[in-house]
């Protein structure tokens, strides 16, 4: 374990912005993509129900 | 308001298509322009719609030469030609919405749906025009007859590609329009099953 404190962890030896930026954007992408897919799925399901009568 | 055409001549390229055509069209009247293929019917209609300029002669709408009050004339006429003027990527509904706005008489969605229903296009109102059949496109175009209220209709072969039922619908519209004091200038190679028309032969 190389971190003495939490702020050390955030600071990342001066590279905080870049490291957290990278991990952050990856995390963001990997959260948003499933959400978009989920809403697409729900939309299409509603459509199927509407036109198919009973699900 | 009447349309009067006097001594009209038209030249395309080197060819003189017709000379000294004169006629007058009054409210409640319709006129059938006849002639062989290439006689100049389309050319005459485009002249009357103000799209091209004649070699000589004068066209007046309500007594005023066309070029002198184009705004009112455009308000008062509807010209439908050989081309459908539909956007292939838009649905019939969207096409008619945009067109009615540009025609200066925005129509509500219900109004348009009612018209589309009359033309048997309900259920197709959301499809892109690109996938419609030749006759269905023509029907979309003809829907404009109902959506733009105006006295003078100039129609170039409106029956093309239409089936029996659509032609019937069109006749109903014609009769209604004439009764209400409209004028109708039309070309068609098929006989027109209406009475009391005048005819101009090129």
């Amino acid at each position, binding site marked *: 374990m*190389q*971190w003495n404190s939490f702020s050390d962890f955030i600071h990342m030896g001066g590279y905080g912005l870049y490291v957290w930026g990278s991990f952050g954007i990856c995390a963001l992408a990997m959260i948003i993509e499933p959400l978009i897919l989920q809403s697409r799925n729900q939309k299409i*399901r509603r459509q199927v129900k509407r036109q198919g009568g009973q699900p | 308001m009447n349309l009067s055409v006097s001594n009209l001549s038209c030249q395309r390229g080197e060819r003189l298509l017709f000379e000294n055509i004169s006629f007058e069209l009054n409210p409640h009247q319709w006129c059938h322009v006849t002639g062989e293929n290439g006689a100049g019917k389309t050319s005459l209609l485009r002249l009357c719609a103000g799209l091209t300029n004649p070699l000589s002669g004068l066209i007046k709408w309500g007594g005023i030469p066309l070029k002198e009050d184009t705004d009112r004339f455009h308000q008062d006429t509807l010209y439908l030609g050989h081309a459908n003027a539909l956007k292939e990527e838009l649905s019939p509904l969207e096409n008619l919405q945009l067109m009615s706005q540009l025609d200066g008489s925005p129509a509500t969605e219900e109004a348009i749906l009612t018209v589309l229903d009359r033309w048997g296009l309900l259920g197709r109102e959301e499809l892109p025009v690109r996938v419609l059949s030749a006759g269905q496109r023509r029907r979309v175009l003809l829907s404009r007859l109902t959506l733009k209220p105006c006295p003078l209709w100039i129609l170039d072969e409106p029956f093309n590609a239409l089936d029996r039922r659509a032609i019937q619908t069109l006749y109903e519209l014609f009769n209604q329009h004439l009764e209400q004091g409209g004028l109708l200038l039309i070309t068609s190679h098929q006989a027109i099953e209406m009475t009391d028309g005048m005819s101009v032969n090129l």
Partner: protein
Amino acid sequence: MNWFKYASPASFYPLAGKLIPYFAAITVVLLAIGLWISFFVAPTDFQQGEGYRIIFVHVPASWMSMFIYCVMAFWSALGLIFNTRLSGMMTQALAPTGALFAFLSLVTGSLWGKPMWGTWWVWDARLTSQLILFFLYLGYLALTSAIDDSRRRDKAGAILSLVGVVNVPIIYFSVIWWNTLHQGASVSMTKAPTMAHTMLMGMLIMALAFWGYTIAMGLKRVRCIILEREMSSEWIKKNAVE
């Protein structure tokens, strides 16, 4: 086991539905382990300090972006040869995720480059060819989204991804030659000198996590596509939307 049975959307749809939770679970577990290694096990690099930790997302994302393109080409070939409908859907299901990883590779790479090289971007061979790969993805996405007849979309997409995959190696090598000839770039990518064991481990685990993620997303998206396309067919009306 008859593989062709699963080539029909009707039988693949429920199978995909069953598989998704497993892959999602695997992804979450591996991500947790991978992140733990990246931040708490892997030591500080003596040259790059803590900045190098970007490698744990950058490299897996780069790998995935290249790999997914090959998988897409594989499905495309299958689709053109056997004329199965599922193949086209699989290709289209994978493309957005592939493009996303290509994008992430570019962004994390630039975020790495700024502290290391002092610039967001250099015209290095690897960076350039990655950028071109991203363009290829965009081309595929643009083409498929512009065609709305599904049969044509499948076939056009398949042709494009195969043409692309033939070109990827050509592009890759041409870019390398281009870059070595001119010798213009002042910096070249510093290969991590001796890749420490833990670092490799972390990268591999993160890569596996991305794998799981890709499969889960692919399956999820293919289910959406199947539903959209077969909306009016009997089997969907009967049992798909419980």
